[in-house]
């Protein structure tokens, strides 16, 4: 699947794994890309988590953090697929990312 996306012209930027590996979408910095592992429910039947999954935050999907909002680095502008979404930090924290090995 991923190779097909690459054929479609989807270029993943080189990802530098230095000392720290982000595990949540809210920990990425602008320009970083990663791959979604799962979306965690906060409480039972979390409507926000459900909506995130509907919008395409599902396992294996590449995401890119495009920008931060101007105040307190909030909200986050996230690109998934061909769409850009603004997410508050607490919303982005629900999205867990794949470990480096799995996303390489």
């Amino acid at each position, binding site marked *: 699947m991923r190779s097909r996306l690459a054929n479609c*012209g989807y270029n993943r930027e080189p990802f530098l794994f230095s000392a720290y590996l982000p595990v949540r979408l809210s920990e990425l910095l602008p320009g970083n890309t990663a791959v979604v592992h799962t979306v965690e429910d906060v409480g039972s039947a979390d409507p926000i988590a459900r909506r995130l999954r509907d919008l395409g935050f599902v396992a294996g999907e590449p995401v890119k953090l495009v920008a931060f909002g*101007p105040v307190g680095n909030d909200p986050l*502008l996230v690109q998934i697929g061909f*769409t850009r979404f603004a997410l508050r930090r607490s919303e982005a924290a629900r999205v867990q990312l794949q470990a480096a090995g799995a996303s390489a």
Partner: protein
Amino acid sequence: MSTAENALRVALLGNPNCGKTALFNQLTGSRQKVANYAGVTVERKQGRYTAPSGRTVELLDLPGAYSLDAASPDEAITRDVCLGIAAGESRPDLLVCVADATNLRLHLRFVLEVRRLGQPMVLALNMMDAARRRGIEIDIAALERELGLPVVETVAVKHAGAQALVQRLDRVVAAPTKRDAADADLHAEVRQLLAAAVRMPARTAAFDDVIDKVALHPVWGLVLLAVLMFLIFQSVFSWAEPLMDGIEGGIKALGDWAVASMAEGPLRSLLTDGLFAGLGGVLVFLPQILILFLFILALEESGYLPRAAFLLDRLMFKAGLSGRSFIPLLSSFACAIPGIMATRSIQDPRDRLTTIMVAPLMTCSARLPVYTLLIAAFIPQRTVAGLFNLQGIVLFALYIAGIASALLVAYVMKRFSRDRSEHALLMELPSYRWPHPRDLAIGLWERGWIFIKRVGGIILALTILLWFLSTFPGPPEGATGPAIDYSLAGRIGRWLEVVFAPIGFNWQICIALIPGLAAREVAVAALGTVYALSGSDDAIAAELGPMIATQWPLATALSLLVWYIFAPQCLSTLAVIRRETNSWRNVWIAAGYLFGLAYVASFITFQVTRMLST
């Protein structure tokens, strides 16, 4: 618009930003009707056109939805209409699912969700022109085969861009030949569909990236936003002014002309001071509403509005609002009526209600005549700290007090709301695109017409009621005082003095507050009437200043100034709250809390000033 018996009932549905409404406008033109769905404030747009075969097609423009698993009242309506369980709606014969051809990864998932319903449906691939420009290639035949339903290309913003859809809808449309199981992974299927039918060279338009680099920049983005906001504020505040004066003058002239041949008497007074004054009072809002909505529609259609909300969300969120609340609140500085109407761009119902509730606290332009009168009469022209004018400082403080109390009220509403759950921002930032003049024109026409039809009636009726209260009964033979003193309004004003004495209002102020219900600035003219002054509004204000400066204690003047920060008595605002929230309860809450705040703040101001000045 009545439902023709044999009309084909078609519902348009799709993700937000798929260009569905532009397609709807293209298909139906001006043959549209806007109302609300039964029992909710979700807007219902219906239109019709005649198909080449001569058959009437009735089109329902359903609210945009990301999923049938509804997360908002809008989405719930879309789901219920599709399922045929919406109150007062019959199930559509045919669904047209609209998808943005440049955003298929997201939009096809919703198409698959709709396909599960098993109803006859057509997929309209919209914005095919933009897709081609970006080099996106879509194999329509392959997509049709894989989806098992008819697929047509549309360009909603181009003339005849919906021809293929019109022709396809004129033929028989069957239910989809394929359907997923209820637990199928729709995302996986979307990937397969894209692989089979779509070739996508770049992920986003380079154009969007370039604009967003500036528009979302922490410094330049905010500068751009400030410039745009200033432009909106300036135009709503001052460009509308000559138009408003023109409308007021025109209606007054019309009224004078209409009664020119009539004898002096109650009927003539009813026509000029009741009917025509009320008519002017309704129409005078139109320039501000139309100018504001021209900006909002253009910003929304172009894709900038969500970006502005992105920049401001953090600041507004702290106060219990959202980024989308900013423009409605800013416009409320000109007038709360267009401001409250502008809250339609806030999707979340709780954020929208909070914004509506605090909008009247923004110091609207109608309070300025009252502020000007009182400040000029009571606040000395003095330079403070060698630089600032004391009168200017007081005016500024009044504005700040309004904003501070709005933030406070929003915060309190959030803290003590029954619904303490987390409400998501989760907002799509769509591709930039040029707004189409037709969509702007139809949008403006709708807003103006809705205001006149649903709010205008209430304002007109109240103006006539107020005229009645301030006119009857007339003064007895040989009366010396002003006529209003003998009327019902005069009597109510005298009774109200008991209520308002602790905050320092004399009976003249109390009487003036009653006609002032129609609009805040009328209070100045009404005070003039009570003090038996005559002449034009400006002349009255000029005479009134020195007179109250000698007759009122300072404490009374300051108390009245503070009263006007909250000024709960604008009936037009209450009428528009009623209309926009579809609830009298919210009207009572708004009027009650504004009155409470005004009374407490004026009470403290009056008592403290009195203590200090004796």
